[in-house]
């Protein structure tokens, strides 16, 4: 059965801890998730590391905070939270990592809910979506 919920597609490219564009992308995804949208994300290039399962938090001596106090933001946790948030509001977040980009970065260990795909999945997403936003790497 076809969903009647609005479907939005996103292409993300920036790797974790490198760009505020990713934070903006997460904000947009959160806003759409809270409105019950069906969200499709195609992670291309460095963005395939956003849901990389082996990311680790750390304490920060300069901040004077322990591991627990620092609560270092990990993109994998944000992706997981966004997937859960979308489901909680009756929508969904389908995150597809570009398979070749995963291979060249050794980023195969992704969190639950992330799957491997190809640019043809992105084209399929774009065709089915109300609109598509690409947030490319700059520089």
């Amino acid at each position: 059965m076809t969903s009647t919920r609005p479907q939005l597609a996103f292409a993300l490219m920036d790797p974790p801890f490198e760009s505020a564009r990713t934070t903006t992308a997460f904000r947009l995804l959160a806003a759409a998730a809270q409105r019950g949208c069906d969200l499709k994300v195609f992670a291309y290039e460095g963005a395939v590391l956003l849901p990389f399962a082996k990311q680790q938090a750390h304490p920060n001596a300069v901040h004077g905070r322990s591991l627990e106090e620092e609560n270092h933001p990990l993109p994998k946790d944000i992706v997981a939270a966004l997937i859960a948030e979308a489901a909680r509001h009756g929508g969904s977040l389908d995150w597809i990592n570009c398979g070749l980009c995963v291979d060249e970065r050794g980023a195969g260990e992704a969190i639950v809910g992330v799957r491997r795909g190809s640019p043809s999945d992105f084209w399929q997403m774009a065709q089915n979506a109300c609109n598509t936003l690409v947030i490319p790497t700059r520089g």
Partner: protein
Amino acid sequence: MKVLNIIESAYRATIEEQDDTILWLMHTLKGAGATLDVVLRGDAVGYAACGQDASGLVFGSWQQTEPPRIEQQLGNLVAKGATVYALADDLTARGLAPGELLPGVQALHQPALTGLLPQYDCIWHW
């Protein structure tokens, strides 16, 4: 669905990836049945120049045997039916004359770009 792809980010990771990754994506989307055209702007207009050669990279005993061939990559996209434009002002600013462009690449003036946009279902700015 018809998509106009404006490519502005240029020469980013082209050595590591052995191509421009957005042009690569255009090829794969074409293969998936996409109808798409390309506008090169900013430094990306350099992709339309004839005679590019990125070969010869060597680090110690490591040699890059398959360098990026962006000229060929772009030419193949034209051959697959994509219309490729390059913004005229950006070409001029970089000293590229129309006669130095790859066959099939069309110089496009900014006002014409504005008129082009409504012809597409989506505009993706890379």
